[in-house]
């Protein structure tokens, strides 16, 4: 598990001896092209597809009572998909989305490989310590759903290539994904600002300890640090590569974070020991039962009165039917096996059933993303 599905923006500078580890011209320009392509397709072509959907009488009727229909989500999505696929514009949008999703690695990995020497020098450096720690635990069982998925069409998954940190940090993150326009992220969205906006959804003015399960790298905890600079930060993940990358980035940014290799369902933290838990873009990367066990674990480690803030793509009920089709599409076409099942659930209801109080769910963005669900442990 890891929230790096929404890759870290260019917030963690990759420097060797004061020089940025940048890709060579072909790789850089090729990825920048993909950023422009995705931005245009999601920002313009898809708007045309949306217009075509809304002007189709069947589409308009479906959109009018989308959230209230008495049908299973699979049937609603199938109907919306059938309407969407009548449009050549929609089909072109999907082909280009798939093309970009593939090409970020097809172009990005060879471009990274050409910089192997500089990349290895980057990893070998000892940054000025910020006091953070990295605790890798090879005894942590890696569940199959994690190890057998090539997330986001990433060959080999999160730990499948030793320089993925450079591919994402110097290439795909700043050159492609920073421009938005993929999955639930709208074209032009500022990913870094979105993480800060989500961190601001913690209801109190200050926090002692904040824990992030499935942290991936340091992106979300760096945003939390910006909002709550005094908070002690702990992040865990299953991926040793992402944890190493996160540790190195955090130390470079001067942010003290304790990174631990843990399953989110078994953090090994004492009960009632943290003031806040944040989960960013994690839910859709775990099966339903793992999600529920992760929430139970969050409730266990939170102190009475402590707060949970979760952000993930919105549920199907909270978006336009075409957007629901687009979110559902990721399941089969962009290496997101749990996208559909986790979007069918109203997680606010689950939180209440598990014993959280003051539960709220709402969107921060106009198209439903970022979507926030938050709640507190009873006092």
């Amino acid at each position, binding site marked *: 598990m890891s929230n790096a599905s929404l890759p870290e923006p260019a917030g963690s500078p990759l420097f060797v001896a004061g020089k940025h580890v940048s890709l060579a011209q072909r790789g850089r320009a090729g990825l920048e092209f993909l950023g422009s392509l995705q931005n245009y397709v999601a920002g313009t072509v898809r708007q045309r597809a949306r217009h075509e959907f809304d002007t189709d009488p069947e589409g308009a009727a479906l959109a009018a009572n989308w959230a209230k229909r008495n049908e299973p989500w699979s049937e609603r999505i199938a109907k919306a998909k059938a309407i969407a696929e009548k449009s050549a514009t929609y089909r*072109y949008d999907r082909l280009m989305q798939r093309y970009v999703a593939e090409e970020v690695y097809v172009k990005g990995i060879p471009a990274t490989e050409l910089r192997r020497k500089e990349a290895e020098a980057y990893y070998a450096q000892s940054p000025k310590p910020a006091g953070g720690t990295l605790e890798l635990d090879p005894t942590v069982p890696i569940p199959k759903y994690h190890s057998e998925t090539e997330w986001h069409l990433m060959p080999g998954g999160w730990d499948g290539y030793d320089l993925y940190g450079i591919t994402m940090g110097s290439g795909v993150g700043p050159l492609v994904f920073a421009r938005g326009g993929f999955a639930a992220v709208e074209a032009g969205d500022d990913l870094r600002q979105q993480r800060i906006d989500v961190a601001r959804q913690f209801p109190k003015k200050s926090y002692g300890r904040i824990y992030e399960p499935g942290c991936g790298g340091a992106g979300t905890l760096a945003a939390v640090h910006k909002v709550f600079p005094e908070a002690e930060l702990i992040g865990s993940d299953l991926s040793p590569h992402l944890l190493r990358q996160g540790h190195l980035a955090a130390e470079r940014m001067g942010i003290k974070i304790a990174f631990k290799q843990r399953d989110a369902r078994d953090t090994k933290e004492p009960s009632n020991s943290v003031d806040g838990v944040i989960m960013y873009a994690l839910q859709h990367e775990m099966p339903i039962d793992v999600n529920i066990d992760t929430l139970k674990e969050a409730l266990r480690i939170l102190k009475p009165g402590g707060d949970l803030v979760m952000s993930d793509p919105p549920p199907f009920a909270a978006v336009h039917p075409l957007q629901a089709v687009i979110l559902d599409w990721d399941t089969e076409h962009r290496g997101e096996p749990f996208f559909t099942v986790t979007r069918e659930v109203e997680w606010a209801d689950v939180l209440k059933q598990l014993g959280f109080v003051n539960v709220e769910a709402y969107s921060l963005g106009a198209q439903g993303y970022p979507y926030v669900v938050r709640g507190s442990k009873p006092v």
Partner: protein
Amino acid sequence: MVDAPKQPYTGSEMMDNLIRMNTELLSELWILRDRVTILEHMLQEKGVVSRKALDDYVPSGDLAAELLRERDALVERVVGGAWMQGFSVDKLVAKAKK
């Protein structure tokens, strides 16, 4: 190993392939334009050739003839590709002599 897509997105495998080829060519075009722009910038910075001089330059003589020949050949190859009428050694040799 990331698997190939499961279906043609446009409804036609050939149409998908053509769009992918076209997009890849657009990518190559951009990579080249990016490089030429950087090249012009660096040449100007080093005082070798100014971008204004490049803009103002009007090809003439042998260079103009070479550009015309290459341009027409490119159009014939790309646009004419859709109307390929068969070929022979004679025709191909004649083409090389154009």
